């Protein structure tokens, strides 16, 4: 019986063919009174309209939280949440943090020991003792 190779089925990878943004929702919390929210409030007034128009797939909610530092909370499609406190930050710094939350995958941050990895199996195939050169003792 001839040996048949296993058929490889294309595995879906995000960004190959289609890309789904992992961030699904961003919540902006600010305080009307506190000075630590000044940059956040400026961001909401002047930068948020453009950001919202550029990212229609992200649900954005803006709500006050009196007496607390401003916080941006991102929710991801893997069910995780990430929150960044943006107290005393300028509007441009807040924009950078928003960009960070938008591009994040939602996974927990971990140290990459081996930065290069492949999802493709080896072209040599799985080693088998019954094929190839026969060793004779």
């Amino acid at each position, binding site marked *: 019986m001839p040996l048949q190779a296993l058929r490889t089925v294309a595995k879906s990878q995000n960004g190959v063919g289609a890309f789904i943004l992992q961030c699904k929702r961003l919540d902006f919390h600010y305080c*009307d009174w506190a000075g630590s929210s000044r940059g956040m409030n400026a961001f*909401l007034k002047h930068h948020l309209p453009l950001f*919202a128009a550029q990212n229609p797939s*992200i*649900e954005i909610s803006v709500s*006050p939280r009196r007496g607390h530092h401003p916080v941006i909370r991102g929710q991801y499609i893997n069910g995780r949440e990430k929150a960044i406190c943006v107290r005393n930050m300028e509007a441009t710094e807040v924009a950078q943090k928003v*960009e960070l939350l938008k591009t994040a995958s939602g996974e927990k941050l971990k140290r990459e020991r081996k930065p290069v990895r492949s999802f493709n199996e080896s072209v040599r195939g799985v080693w088998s003792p019954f094929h190839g050169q026969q060793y004779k003792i």
Partner: protein
Amino acid sequence: MRTSRAAEQALRVAILPQPQHYVCRACRAQAARQFHTSNRIHAELPFFKHLQQQLFGSKETEQAEKSREEKRERQYEELKQRGGILHEPEVKVGKNGQQYEIAALVAPSQTSSYVQAQTWDDLERIGSEKWVKARADRGEQYVGWVMLASTSGATMTDALPDSCRRSVVELSNKQWQLLLHHIVVEILVLQKAGRLPGEVCYPRKPYSNSWQHTRNADIKPSATGNGVSVSFAHAAAEKSILQAIFTPIPLAAPEDQQSLVVEVRAAVGDGRDLVAKNVSGSNIAPPWMDFSIKDPSVKMALVKRIIQLTGKRLPDPAISLSTTLADLYDHVHMKEKPKTLAEAPQMQRIQLNAPNVQVFSSRRTPIHKEMDIGRWKIIEEELVRRDLPVTGSRWPGAKAKWL
């Protein structure tokens, strides 16, 4: 390779997130001019020739100049054939019976006395000191019709008694509505009598007290469907308003500052002792203001009278874009500063324009989140069934561990 390098740069720039969101028009134009994917030697014109043409003009620009000159000469010839009145200004009659003088056309090639100016030193500049002096020498006396400029900052009520030296009179919303009502009634009465709406800026006769009659006037859409009509309780009121305004501008009786101040004070009534039915005092314009001011003579009369009485100058776009009196009121009335971020106009606008943004004026609690996904009803039922408090965590046993 230059082409591929430039393309690479363009792609890289397109992919990178832009840290600077606003680039001025001049910089954008310059960037568009300087960005080329093709080599300079492949350009239609050599670089220096292009520069030369930009500085000294090309054949096309010379041709265009020549055709413009020909057109001007043709226009001059036509005018000559029509009546030959080259030295006397032509007069045209407008829609309202006003007469306009058309400036005389001068052909430089045919008029030997015409010398083209090389610098602007000796050219007539309208409004300059020299111009004013020249007019005064001819016997013309300049009479200002707007309130004199000076300090500003106080409110209407505390400044009016001696406010001859104020530049802009600050009025509350209620006072603005009263003043606009007063001006509009006067303009409508003038129009009804067949006089020009611009005459509303003419001086008033002493002790005329028009405001007593205008305040009780009703502005309603006219029965014909176009325009509005004004009605008075007594027919004599209309007559006295008309009589109060001088028919020709009297040279001997220019409107002085004190009379303008008295006019404003009387029209707005100090904002205290008012029993005005047409006034609401809110930011939103009352219904009687929803009438068209598309007629330029009415609109200009209105704007001029506002400047004359209050010193408030409206920007040109605001004037040209205002089609109703309500639009004009939106530009003049006092805007209240938003107290919270959620009330700011930017946040209100984003809520309307961006469908993926929700702006809340109060804190969002976990209960709101449960409500959004429709789970709160079940949670509430379960809490009630177990005899537990529905909201809050300050109850005995809230932190007890379940065994």
